C-alpha cells in the first residue's frame, strides 16, 4: 500500500514536471499570463479604483466576489469548529478555588458552581502562581498589538496588509490575553456571544455592502453606486467600498481565530484553556 502511494505520488509529480516543458519561459514578457488580463490590472488599477496597491485592487474589487467566499470559508471553519467541539451541558467536574486572603486552595468535586465572590477566585487545574512580568508585559502589549492590527487593516490600500492579516493580528491580541492570564479572563472581556455575533456580522458587512450596491441600482459588489451615499465620485467610491469590505473581513477573521482557539484549547468547554 505504501509503495503504491509513493508510485502514485511520483507519477503525478512526473506528470506535472513533464507539462512544464510546454510552459512559456520563466518571467517572459509575452507569456499569456502577463499579456491577457494582468496588463489592465497593472496599468489601470489606480485610475479605475483609486487603490495604489494592485493586489488589494484585484483581491477586493476586480475579483472581490471570490474574496467574499474566501471570507465565508473562514466563517465556515469557525462555525464548523464551534458545532463539532462546543459542549454546552457539561457535568460539573473537578474545580479549584483559591481563597485570596489565605492562599488556601479548595478542590470541589461535582455539585453546583458557586457564585462569584470577592474572597475566592477560580483557578485552573494546572495553575501557576501569579507571574508579574508575564502578565504586565502582555497587558501593556495588547493595546499596541490591536493598534497595529487596525493600521494593517486600514493601510491595505497602500501596502501589504488588509482585512485577513489585520484580523489575525487582532485575534492574536485576545488569544495572548487568554494565554498569559487564563481563558476566563479573556472570555469575561470578550464573551462568547459577542464573539460569535461578530463572526457573523463581519461577513454580513461584506455581503451587505454588495447588496446595498444592488439596492442602489448597480450590480452586486459594484461599489461605484456607493458614490450616491458616500458623497464622493465613482472612483473614490470603489476605494471606500474596498475599505468597507476589508473591515468586514477583519472582524470575521478576528472572531473566527478567537473562537477556534477557545474551542480547541478548552475542548469545547470554554472554561479552562492552555
Amino acid at each position, binding site marked *: 500500500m505504501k509503495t503504491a502511494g509513493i508510485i502514485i505520488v511520483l507519477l503525478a509529480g512526473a506528470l506535472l514536471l513533464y*507539462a512544464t516543458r510546454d*510552459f512559456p519561459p520563466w518571467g517572459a514578457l509575452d507569456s499569456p499570463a502577463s499579456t491577457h488580463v494582468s496588463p489592465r490590472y497593472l496599468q489601470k488599477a489606480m485610475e479605475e479604483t483609486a487603490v495604489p496597491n494592485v493586489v488589494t485592487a484585484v483581491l477586493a474589487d476586480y475579483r472581490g466576489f*471570490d474574496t467574499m467566499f474566501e471570507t465565508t470559508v473562514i466563517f*465556515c471553519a469557525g462555525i464548523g469548529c464551534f*458545532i463539532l467541539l462546543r459542549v454546552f451541558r457539561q457535568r460539573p467536574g473537578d474545580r479549584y478555588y483559591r481563597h485570596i486572603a489565605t492562599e488556601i486552595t479548595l478542590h470541589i468535586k461535582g455539585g453546583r458552581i458557586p457564585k462569584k465572590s470577592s474572597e475566592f477566585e477560580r483557578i485552573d487545574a494546572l495553575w501557576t502562581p501569579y507571574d508579574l512580568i508575564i502578565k504586565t508585559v502582555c497587558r501593556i502589549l495588547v493595546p499596541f498589538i490591536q493598534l497595529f492590527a487596525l493600521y494593517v487593516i486600514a493601510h491595505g490600500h497602500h501596502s501589504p496588509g488588509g482585512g485577513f492579516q489585520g484580523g489575525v493580528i487582532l485575534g492574536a491580541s485576545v488569544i495572548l490575553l487568554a494565554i498569559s492570564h487564563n481563558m476566563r479572563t479573556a472570555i469575561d472581556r470578550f464573551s462568547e456571544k459577542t464573539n460569535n455575533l461578530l463572526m457573523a*456580522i463581519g*461577513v454580513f458587512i461584506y455581503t451587505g455592502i454588495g447588496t446595498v450596491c*444592488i439596492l442602489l441600482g448597480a450590480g452586486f459588489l459594484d461599489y461605484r453606486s456607493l458614490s450616491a451615499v458616500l458623497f464622493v465620485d465613482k472612483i473614490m467610491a470603489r476605494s471606500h467600498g474596498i475599505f468597507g469590505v476589508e473591515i468586514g473581513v477583519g472582524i470575521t477573521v478576528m472572531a473566527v481565530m478567537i473562537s477556534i482557539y477557545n474551542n480547541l484549547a478548552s475542548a469545547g468547554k470554554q472554561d479552562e484553556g492552555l
Partner: protein
Amino acid sequence: MNDHTPALLIILPLLFAFMVSGMAWIKKSLCYPLAVAGSGLCAFFSIRVFTHVLRHGTMQYSLGGWEAPWGIGYHVDLLNGVVLVAVSVLAFINMIATRKAAAIQFPEKEGAFYALYLLFIVGLVGIVATGDLFNLYVLLEVASLTSYALIALGEGRAPLSSLNYLYMGTIGGCFYLLGVGYLYIMTGSLNMADVASLLRPLYESGAIWVAFTFCMVGIGVKMAFFPLHVWLPNAYTYAPSAVSSLIAPLMTKVMVYVMIRLMISVFCVDFAFSVLDLGSAMVWLSILAIVMGAALALAQKNLKRLFCYIIVSEIGYMVGGAWLGNAAGMTGAILHILNDALMTICLFLAAGTIHYRINNLDLDHLQGLFGRMPVTMACLVAAGLSIIGVPPTCGFFSKWYLITGALQAGQYGFMAALLFSSLVNVILFFRVFEIGYYGDPGHGHMHGSSPETRTEAPAAMLAPLLILSAGLVVMGVFTGSIVAAVIDPIIPAGLAR
C-alpha cells in the same frame, strides 16, 4: 444589468446563513424560519432564472461591474439552469422534511446547523451558476468544508469518516486547483468561455492535457468515481440522517455537472474525444465503477450503506454516458443527473424516516416494516423501482438513453454493465422488500411497540417524501418534453447524433 436574479439566488441564502448564525445567540426560535426563508428564496430565484433562460436564452451577470475576463462572470444556460433548480428545490424540500429529526439531534446548536446547511446550498448553487474556473474552486471549498462539518456531526465513527473524507476531498480540490493553475499559465484567463476560445490553438500542448487530467481526477475524487470512492460509504452512512439526505443526492451530482461543464464548455468535445481520444478508456473505467458498485452493494447489511454503494454505481452510469461520445449518451448522463438526484433523495429520506422511528438501519431490523410504516415503505418501493429502471418511473428513461447511446457507440460492455447493475438492483431491493414484508416482526429486536401497531412517521416528514415519490413518476412521464426543451439544445454540435 437590471436583472439581478442570477446573483440573488446565491446572495440571499448567504445573507440568511449569517443571520441564522447570529440569531442563534439572540432568539433561537427564529433560526429555523429564517433558514427556511433563505432556502426557499434560493429555490424561488432558481426557478425564476431557469424560466427566464427557457424563454430568452442564456443569462450573463458580471459581478462587481467588471466585464468577464477581468472580473467574475455568471453564465447560466439551460444546463446549469436545470441543475440549479434541482439542487435548490431538493435542498429546500429536505430542510422541511428533516425538521423533526434535526431538532432532536442538535437541540442546542440548531442555529449553527442551519447556517452550515444554508452555506452548503450556497456552495453548490454557486458551483453550478458560475462561469469562472477559480470562483468554482472557492465555492467548492465552501461546499466541501460545510459538508465535512455536517457529516462529522453524526454518531459513532462519523468524525473519523469525515476526517477521511476531508483528506480525500482536499486532495481532490488540490488536483482541480493545479489543473486550473496550469490552464492559467497557458492561457492567462480564468473565465470559462474565454479559456475555451484561447485553448483552441493550444490543443496539442502537453500542459493542456495534464491540466485536463488533473481537473478530471480532482473532480473524480469529489464525485466518488470508482477507484476514488473509498471515502463515500462511511461518510454518508455515519452522517446524521438529515445531512445524508442533503449531501448524498446533491454533492456527487453537482460534481458530475462540473465534469460535463468542463467537457463541453471549457475543453470542448473535440479536445476530449478527438485530440485525447479518452472516450473508450473512460467508458471502461465507468463499466468497472458500475460493476464494482453493484457487487459491493450486494455485500452490505445496512440500508444506508447499501444506498451508498448504489450511488457509486450510479456515478458510473453518468460518467460513462457522458464519455460515450454521442448525443444519446450525453442526454442520458444529463437526464440522469436530475433523475438520480431525485431518486437518491427519496431513498435517503425514506431511510431517515425509518431511522427516526426504529433507530437502526441494519437490514435484519427492518422486519415487518410494511405493516408498521406502510407509507414510508411505499415511497421506498417507488424509489427502488426507479433505481431498478421500471417504467413509468424516471429511472427507466435515463437508462434507456444510456443504453441507446451505448449501442450507437458500439460500447456493448457498457450496455452489459447497465443491465447487470439493473439486475443487481432488483436483487437488492427485493431483498429489502422481502425482509420488510414477510420478515417476522416478532423475531427481530423490537422496541416496545407490538408488531401490529402502526408507527408511521409524522405527516410533516411523510408529505415531502410523498411529493418526491410522485415526482419520480412525473419526471418519467414528462421525460420527452424535458429532453426536447432543456437537454437537446445544450448537446454540443460536435457529438454524433
